[in-house]
């Protein structure tokens, strides 16, 4: 049974230096308070898999020196433009980048979910995305005739980490329609979740809620972090804090500004 951790740091204890961590895209429940806690702890050499894209979360972790390898399809700040620390890190070669395309990440995690070693995917052939991924292979469709198709090895993360609206006392987590969170948890060896609140009712007992619930069976630890997605959105709960994101982009334009941002918004804990 998942552990309701007394503190966020204790829930995150299994996320260690060098581990492969999968996190969701910018609108599906990004665990920002947990991300700040990992930066405060000084985590190093993460292999971050952002399913399938990222914004502030990847940029913050890169700027804070927490990332060894980044595997994703794109990082940007949406309407606020390029992700400054991501861009700087690629140009100065300070992280290892595994460029992917969105459905390839979904499919490679689905392979792990099914316990199979690879997944085929259409597209990709003739692209430089494929050319720069020696771990991806082209084979002839064994059921077809002269039909090349790409095989993607399964991605099996050490940890899946996301933020969700609520969990019950058995550790079942309500994720609503964010189906990729199920795939992440199914594929990863362990799953850590931060939630807005804990409810007393059994989420699996209600057939309507059950359809959008990740069973506690897959969950290793849970921490309650109200507004744990801030300044990004939590679907159906709160929108992104656009003024803050604009402020972030201004700070992160330079290494000095980024350091000031970290000091102000990450190392100095926000009043709850």
């Amino acid at each position, binding site marked *: 049974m998942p552990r309701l951790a007394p503190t966020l740091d204790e829930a995150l204890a299994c996320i260690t230096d060098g581990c492969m961590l999968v996190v969701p*895209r*910018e*609108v*599906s429940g990004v665990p920002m308070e947990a991300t700040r806690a990992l930066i405060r702890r000084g985590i190093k050499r993460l292999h971050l898999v952002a*399913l*399938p*894209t990222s914004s502030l979360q990847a940029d913050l972790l890169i700027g804070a020196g927490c990332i060894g390898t980044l595997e*994703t*399809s*794109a*990082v*940007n700040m*949406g*309407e*606020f433009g*390029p*992700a400054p620390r*991501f*861009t700087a890190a*690629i*140009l100065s*070669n300070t992280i290892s980048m595994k*460029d*992917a*395309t*969105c*459905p*390839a990440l*979904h*499919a490679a995690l*689905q392979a792990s979910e099914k316990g199979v070693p690879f997944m085929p*995917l*259409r*597209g*990709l*052939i*003739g*692209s*430089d*995305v*494929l050319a*720069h991924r020696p771990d991806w292979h082209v084979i002839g469709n064994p059921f077809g005739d*002269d*039909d*090349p*198709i790409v095989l993607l090895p399964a991605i099996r993360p050490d940890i899946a980490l996301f933020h969700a609206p609520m969990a019950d006392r058995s550790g079942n987590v309500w994720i609503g*329609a*964010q*189906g*990729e*969170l*199920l*795939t992440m948890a199914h594929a990863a060896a362990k799953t850590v979740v931060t939630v807005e609140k804990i409810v007393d009712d059994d989420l699996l007992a209600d057939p309507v809620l059950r359809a959008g619930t990740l069973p506690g069976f897959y969950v290793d630890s849970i921490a309650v972090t109200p507004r744990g997605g801030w300044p990004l959105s939590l*679907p*159906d709960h709160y929108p992104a804090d*656009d003024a803050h994101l604009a402020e972030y982009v201004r700070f992160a334009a330079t290494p000095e500004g980024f350091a000031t941002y970290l000091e102000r918004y990450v190392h100095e804990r926000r009043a709850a």
Partner: protein
Amino acid sequence: MTKEEFGFQDEELLASVIADLIGDVRHVAVGNASPIPATAALLARERGRLEGLSRPHVSLLQSRKHNFWTDGARELFDCAGQGRIDVFFLSGGQIDGHGNVNLVSIGDYDQPKARFPGSFGSSYLYYVVPKVILFRTEHSRRTLVPKVDFISAPGVSPPNVHRTGGPVALVTNRCLFSFDAARGRFALASVHPGHSIEEVVEHTGFEFDRPADVPPTPAPSPETLRLMREVVAPQLAEVYPQFTARVFPLGRPRESGDP
């Protein structure tokens, strides 16, 4: 071009052009960072509604309200793989004359001179969505190049590669190009009001066909502008609040404190 001279903004013209290209289809999907295609897709949906049609369905990838997904972010790609998405949109840091798009970097991939966000879903969707409309609001020799530095997705593929989709057109701030997949080449289809063929040639880094008669791009009709400003803009504001506030300042829902 200014709104005062023509009665519409660049973004409104481009959205109108794209809406016409969408045509009568069942499902239009729009990815990240695509406010003008999103405007066009929602405009196409409103036109369909006015004709009493229940199409096109519109899926905005980052929207809560304007998509019907219940199987997570992968549903878009699964849908496309089956041929259930008819129209999609792609841009690129570079686009070349063979329809190749580059969403990754300039210069050598391992030592790039510039880096863009990344390929998103392009390396897959370009192959399997029948009508991909390319858009690039900066029409220059910097963006429209003879050969891209990195192929996020190729414009055409060899005959044995599974390919049910690809580019049909390229819309820029100066003109509309059509794409001939058999020849892997663009042709100038129309030039936007206030721009000239000579200017298009001067600012395009790749070769393209120039028919003897290149018409001007039709200006958006008053009804199209009304739909965009009054009906589409409030819907668009959920996903693109900054864009909507800039392009459709009168279109967003009034808030307390507004003049």
